[in-house]
């Protein structure tokens, strides 16, 4: 196996690409009781148009299929459910779907091998019937309604819709009650056969493991598969411009909440990994310098009661989209946006404050190191970054190379007023 070592966090990653195309990543963590694993496929909510290998026709699927499939994978032909089987082993099993991948996972202290057996068995053996698909619509319907009652989710999705005209990131991961009503077992099998091939998947382990031995255990449990052709994913053309600057929805909240979004260009696709990472680090530094806890703007906003606490700052990107999202709570979100834009202008016309820059950079370094304490966090991070074509260690390797000059350049390129949107959830008055 290939060994990648990081001397700063003092961890090693063992990586192997198997003959069938599956990538396996293992990070041994001595003295930790918990063992964690994820098996993920590069199939998420935005992959809803594609040409399957060896086919000519395009397939277009209802919104929410990746997530629906995640729910149904646990069902077994003998009537049992793998979630029950894993739970009976004393193992904590789960699954989740994002925009670009679906993950099956468990964490355990004992019974690792029997749990590995079960997880690898159910992910490789789908079993869908008309009946079990119908029943799931009720459960997922309640999951969708649960999200409908979360103002945080509504405000985020509205921000996506303000930024993206065509990109499927603007649809809910779980779909809608209407869209899932169209899902049947045929579409599930079709997507399973297309996307659940080892060459489209990655496995990640963290815990007290011997990597070579573990790799053998994985190999033993892999079914033989035919070589898979290329999956052609079709994404609609997305204009550089935003859809609309502003949206307001009313819900029962005690105080308005907002997401400020800045749509970024998609040249990420053509960048190498290190340059994407550097850009990400620079944006994190900039966001913290602009509106983070020690910034002048934060102080002004807090003292004038325009915000109630630290806003949540994030740069989200995949191969298909990239944007900044700033989430917070305010009695006057539009004024927060105005002040932020003034601050961006000021920052653009001044030199970068070097002391501030260094401090934030150190803070970000600390945040990266902290990610390596929790085996669950490690697996999720390596899998999510893998889907973007990135190795997570790259953040710690590259942080030194992010200079004030480069950061200034990113500020000028990305923090564009024309591409800035705001989504607001206001109090309803009943």
């Amino acid at each position, binding site marked *: 196996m290939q060994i990648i070592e990081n001397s700063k966090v003092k961890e090693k990653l063992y990586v192997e690409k198997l003959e069938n195309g599956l990538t396996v990543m293992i990070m041994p963590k001595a003295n930790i*009781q918990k063992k964690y694993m994820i098996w993920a496929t590069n199939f998420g909510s935005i992959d809803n148009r594609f040409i399957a290998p060896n086919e000519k026709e395009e397939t277009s699927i209802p919104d929410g299929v990746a997530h629906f499939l995640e729910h149904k994978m646990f069902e077994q032909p003998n009537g049992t459910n793998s979630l029950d089987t894993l739970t009976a082993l004393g193992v904590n099993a789960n699954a989740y779907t994002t925009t670009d991948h679906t993950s099956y996972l468990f964490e355990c*202290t004992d019974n690792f091998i029997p749990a590995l057996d079960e997880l690898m068995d159910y992910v490789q053996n789908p079993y869908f019937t008309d009946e079990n698909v119908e029943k799931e619509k009720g459960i997922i319907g309640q999951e969708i309604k649960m999200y409908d009652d979360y103002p945080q989710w509504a405000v985020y999705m509205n921000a996506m819709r303000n930024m993206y005209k065509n990109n499927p990131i603007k649809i809910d991961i779980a779909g809608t009650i209407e869209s899932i009503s169209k899902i049947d077992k045929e579409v599930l099998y079709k997507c399973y056969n297309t996307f659940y091939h080892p060459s489209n998947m990655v496995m990640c382990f963290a815990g007290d493991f011997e990597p070579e031995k573990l790799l053998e255990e994985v190999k033993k449990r892999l079914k033989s598969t035919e070589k898979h052709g290329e999956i052609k994913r079709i994404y609609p053309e997305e204009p550089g411009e935003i859809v609309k600057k502003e949206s307001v929805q009313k819900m029962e909240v005690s105080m308005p909440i907002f997401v400020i979004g800045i749509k970024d260009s998609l040249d990420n696709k053509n960048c190498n990994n290190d340059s994407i990472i550097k850009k990400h680090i620079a944006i994190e530094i900039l966001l913290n310098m602009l509106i983070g806890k020690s910034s002048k703007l934060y102080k002004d906003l807090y003292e004038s009661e325009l915000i109630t606490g630290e806003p949540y700052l994030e740069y989200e990107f995949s191969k298909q989209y990239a944007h900044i999202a700033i989430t917070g709570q305010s009695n006057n979100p539009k004024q927060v946006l105005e002040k932020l834009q003034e601050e961006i202008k000021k920052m653009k016309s001044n030199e970068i404050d070097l002391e501030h820059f260094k401090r934030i950079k150190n803070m970000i370094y600390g945040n990266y190191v902290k990610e390596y304490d929790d085996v669950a966090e490690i697996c999720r991070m390596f899998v999510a970054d893998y889907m973007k074509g990135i190795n997570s260690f790259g953040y710690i390797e590259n942080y030194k190379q992010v200079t004030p000059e480069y950061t200034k350049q990113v500020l000028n390129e990305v923090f564009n007023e024309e591409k800035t949107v705001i989504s607001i959830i206001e109090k309803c008055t009943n």
Partner: protein
Amino acid sequence: MPYKIQEVKRGIKTHMIETNKFKTNLFAIFLSVPLNRESVTQNALIPAVLRRGTANLKTQEEISIALENMYGATLDCGVEKTGDNQTLKFYLETLNDTFLPEQENLSKKAIELLLDVVFNPLTENRNFKKEYVDSEKKTIKRLIEGKIDNKDMYAYNRCIEEMYKNKPYGLYKYGYIEDLDKLDEKNLYEDYKKLLNEAKIDIFVSGNFGNDDIIDVINENINIVNLKPREDKHIINTEEKEKKEKVEVQTIQEPKDVTQGKLVIGLDIDFYEPDSKYAMCLYNVILGESATSKMFQNVREKAGLAYSARSTYVRQKNNIFIRAGIEISNYEKAVNIIKEQLEDMKNGKFTEEDIENAKKYMVAGIKTVQDEQDSEITYYMGQELSGKLIYFEDYINKINDVTREQIDQIAKNININTIYFLKNNE
């Protein structure tokens, strides 16, 4: 032993968890006092004011800069309801010195900063700074008003409030808006001084401190030297004190702007024996905590009524709370299915396998407590407040020793106290 407790003075303890598993060191200070209506609001306000400035770092900005300079150390403050106590919590997490890009001694700096935040606030004319108190009163007001923002939690808190009307546990941990109005920089500072003289104080350090004696740093810190010994008045949190009376089931339906109904059912456990809490844990796992539980299997998997359907055991109060998010029109159906599950438990309709699975579930949970610094601290603090220390291994043994008869006995003594339903505005 990697876990050492020392009494600094009467009512004040340090707790040291030595471990080299983590890249961070975690420091925590807890001030615990009995929960009551008179002081709940001021106690919620105090941490919010303290984090605004210390005598040395006078503004939030200065504190933030100091934290950023420590490679992004994080300071967290808050209040928690721990049974019939209210605990003010202060955490500071830093990188372990081993993982710094340049050699530095962060641990000492970190604990001193945290001690300053709790014990050495910025004052003006022997009061808190007025500006900070005024501003944080608004913050707490918003938190109280913000109760409604998370509908699941709102429903859960409302059910507890109805079950514990006019009792300490029914209080909201952030207090009450009408009480906030009475607080100012003067009386809040008096309350704070009283709190420092009366609260049970526990200081936790977890991590790898090399050769430094971090406990000495605490003992010799002027803030700690200045504290007086105190009579510890906190309420010992044990299930044995929770005598339940059979009550008529109260049913409450409340309309709000929701698309999904939130059902919460509060159960009384009218039973206590030494160590019965282990059997209660298992009863709860079988009923509704795990994916093989009766709730998950019957409400979600068989009936397809819910996505989320589970139960929680609140040891300190000898209660179980069942929670489910359901279609509003399915209320009757869901309540009936849940009642059937309780009946089945009473009639012993659970298998040996259910018990074994529940034991494995609990044991895995306990083992992994030690994999996270904050959950390990929370575990030991819970033991501290219950007045007896049980190590992880003993805990696991006691779980494994539970018999079917013990679970049966609990099942027969469980009664519904309150059925609360949050539904839509009609």
